[in-house]
């Protein structure tokens, strides 16, 4: 449990380091964009040792263990001692919470999470001390029971803290059902704790055995629940490397758990396991279950290749702090059981724990090295991407400017054409109002119609450019539909005469002629429709029918 706890915390630090590394990449991107500077990327280990919290952590870990290794105290005593003292682990993290942001970049959510966790653990620490000094003697419960209570307290704290981890709220792979599963687990555990303290005198009395086994199963159940949720999140994170990792771990765990279980069934009975302190074997049952589920999940999400993969492994917000606990959950029983089998460990857990620590640390470092490589690769990728992005941005800028120049040019053309057009159209109209022979009148009318046709063309071009720029807007003004339709037909008077095609306008009965809208847009539509109708009608009739 100490190791579980410490690895959660170590994982958190790991995540922070990754985040810092992520920021460096951003900086690197900017520099690559300007191509003026090159930033030497720090390796994971360099970053790791720079952090004061990281430096304190392993030292504390070692210091806590020194008294045990130097003395002859029993494991049960040591366990309680460790439980109590291990809360000291929290001190650097409390410090991390209070540390200036500049040095230890925590988001507001993380800050609140760690505050919550720190307070929980501090409370638990007080309860533990009270247990040691007072509860055991006053209530006449055994030291073991008190220790187990502390055990459970740890689980409750952890589950509650995890369930309400604020930054999981927005995590895409953490659903609210996951949260309530965890809360339900914590509630069951609380009830069980109550039951355990009130009803069970000691796990070493015959009537206590069954409850003790039951309690172990509960531990296993809750640990499995937590682990499964974490695995699920990891797999949902869609980084297929996680899937591969869990696939391998699931395979190894299955084999060991199965072998051990079969062997144990052969020559032991249930109570002997417990008495011989080999209760870890019971853990193999849920771990076997986990292995099966992990396999199932692994095949459900096979080799999910992520195109927009986060730049670093575990950078996906909250996976990193939990990854060591997952690793630990797999490695611990496997290592312990295998050490028992080969005879390196006779009976006690404590030495095994040392190996477990070493093994887990090794796994942690291996992951860190992998991480470091991944970081370097993504650094190179970031550089390439930055250059590409810059090029793309420049191209976009150029295209935008060209588009703007085009629009401006068209607006100017329109203005310059309309000004003389005013002379042509205005004058034709004035001439037509004067005394003219019918032939002259027809000729002037031809000038007017042609000029209006030209205007339609210019309007079309303008509208087209507006549509291209996505800026077309519509007017809302009253207009007379009948008048508008007449104007449109007037434009085709000459063409109509040449082809001897009759044209008629019809309106639906009781239809309102005075409408509101954009007459110039409607005119354009009508001109195009009527123009096409006329073009493809060699002889006969074109009818324009309006209805609502």
């Amino acid at each position, binding site marked *: 449990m100490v190791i579980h706890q410490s690895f959660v915390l170590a994982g958190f630090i790991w995540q922070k380091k990754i985040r810092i590394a992520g920021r460096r990449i951003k900086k690197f991107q900017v520099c690559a964009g300007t191509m003026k500077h090159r930033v030497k990327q720090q390796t994971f280990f360099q970053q790791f040792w720079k952090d004061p919290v990281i430096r304190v952590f392993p030292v504390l870990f070692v210091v806590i263990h020194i008294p045990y290794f130097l003395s002859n105290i029993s494991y049960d005593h040591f366990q309680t001692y460790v439980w109590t003292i291990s809360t000291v682990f929290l001190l650097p993290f409390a410090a991390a919470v209070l540390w200036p942001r500049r040095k230890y970049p925590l988001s507001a959510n993380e800050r609140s999470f760690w505050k919550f966790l720190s307070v929980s653990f501090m409370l638990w620490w007080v309860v533990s001390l009270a247990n040691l000094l007072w509860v055991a003697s006053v209530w006449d419960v055994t030291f073991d029971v008190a220790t187990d209570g502390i055990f459970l307290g740890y689980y409750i704290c952890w589950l509650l803290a995890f369930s309400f981890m604020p930054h999981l709220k927005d995590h895409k792979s953490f659903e609210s059902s996951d949260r309530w599963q965890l809360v339900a687990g914590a509630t069951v555990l609380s009830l069980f704790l109550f039951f355990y303290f009130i009803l069970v005198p000691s796990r070493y009395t015959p009537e206590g055995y069954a409850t003790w086994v039951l309690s172990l199963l509960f531990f296993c159940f809750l640990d499995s629940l937590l682990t499964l949720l974490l695995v699920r999140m990891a797999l949902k994170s869609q980084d297929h490397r996680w899937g591969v990792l869990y696939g391998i771990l699931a395979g190894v765990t299955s084999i060991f758990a199965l072998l051990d279980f079969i062997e144990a069934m052969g020559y032991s009975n249930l109570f002997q396991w417990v008495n011989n302190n080999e209760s870890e074997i019971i853990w193999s049952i849920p771990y076997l279950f986990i292995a099966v589920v992990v396999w199932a999940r692994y095949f459900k999400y096979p080799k999910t290749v992520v195109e927009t993969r986060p730049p670093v492994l575990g950078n996906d917000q909250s996976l990193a702090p939990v990854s060591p606990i997952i690793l630990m959950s797999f490695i611990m029983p496997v290592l312990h059981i295998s050490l028992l089998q080969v005879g390196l460990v006779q009976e006690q857990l404590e030495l095994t724990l040392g190996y477990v620590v070493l093994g887990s640390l090794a796994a942690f470092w291996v992951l860190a090295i992998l991480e470091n490589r991944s970081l370097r690769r993504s650094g190179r990728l970031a550089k390439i991407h930055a250059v590409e992005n810059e090029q793309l941005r420049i191209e976009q800028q150029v295209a935008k400017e060209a588009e703007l120049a085009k629009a401006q040019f068209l607006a100017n053309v329109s*203005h310059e054409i309309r000004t003389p*057009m005013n002379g*042509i159209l205005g004058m034709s109209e*004035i001439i037509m*109002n004067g005394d003219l022979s019918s032939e002259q009148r027809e000729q002037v009318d031809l000038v007017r119609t042609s000029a209006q046709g030209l*205007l339609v063309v210019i309007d079309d071009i303008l509208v087209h450019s507006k549509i291209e720029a996505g800026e077309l807007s519509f007017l809302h003004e009253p207009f007379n539909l009948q008048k508008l339709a007449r104007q449109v037909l007037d434009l085709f008077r000459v063409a109509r005469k040449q082809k001897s095609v009759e044209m008629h306008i019809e309106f639906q009965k009781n239809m309102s002629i005075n409408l509101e809208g954009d007459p110039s847009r409607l005119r354009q539509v009508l001109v195009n429709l009527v123009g096409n109708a006329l073009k493809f009608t060699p002889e006969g009739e074109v009818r324009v029918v309006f209805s609502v």
Partner: protein
Amino acid sequence: MDDSKPNNQAIDFAPTSKERILLAEDNEINQIVAIKQLETLGKNVDVVSNGYEVLHALNEHDYSLILMDCQMPELDGIEATKLIRERGHSKSDLPIIALTAHVFDEDRVRCMAAGMNDFLSKPLSLEQLRTTLASWL
């Protein structure tokens, strides 16, 4: 053609009994067109060719309406309108109608924001001119 020239004489000679309209237009051909159109509609018209002349003419006479080209040398129609409104000629007191070859909505909005009453786009038909004048006079 005499009174089509933008000079002080034209302003002085205009009779006061009828509604008098001030036309601000820099393009000479379009001046002629507009004058003819207004005459056809039976209106008296004085012509000026930039914003400063508009302000000057307003000092000399009272006008019932201004037809204002937006794009003019020295002082354009938009700025001239702003100055006229600043000098206390309200929208109801002296309607100003934009007369421009710009047809975009932005131009319309710009004219209205400057304090103009209406917007006529070129080429201008007699019918459009008649309707618009009727609504403001």
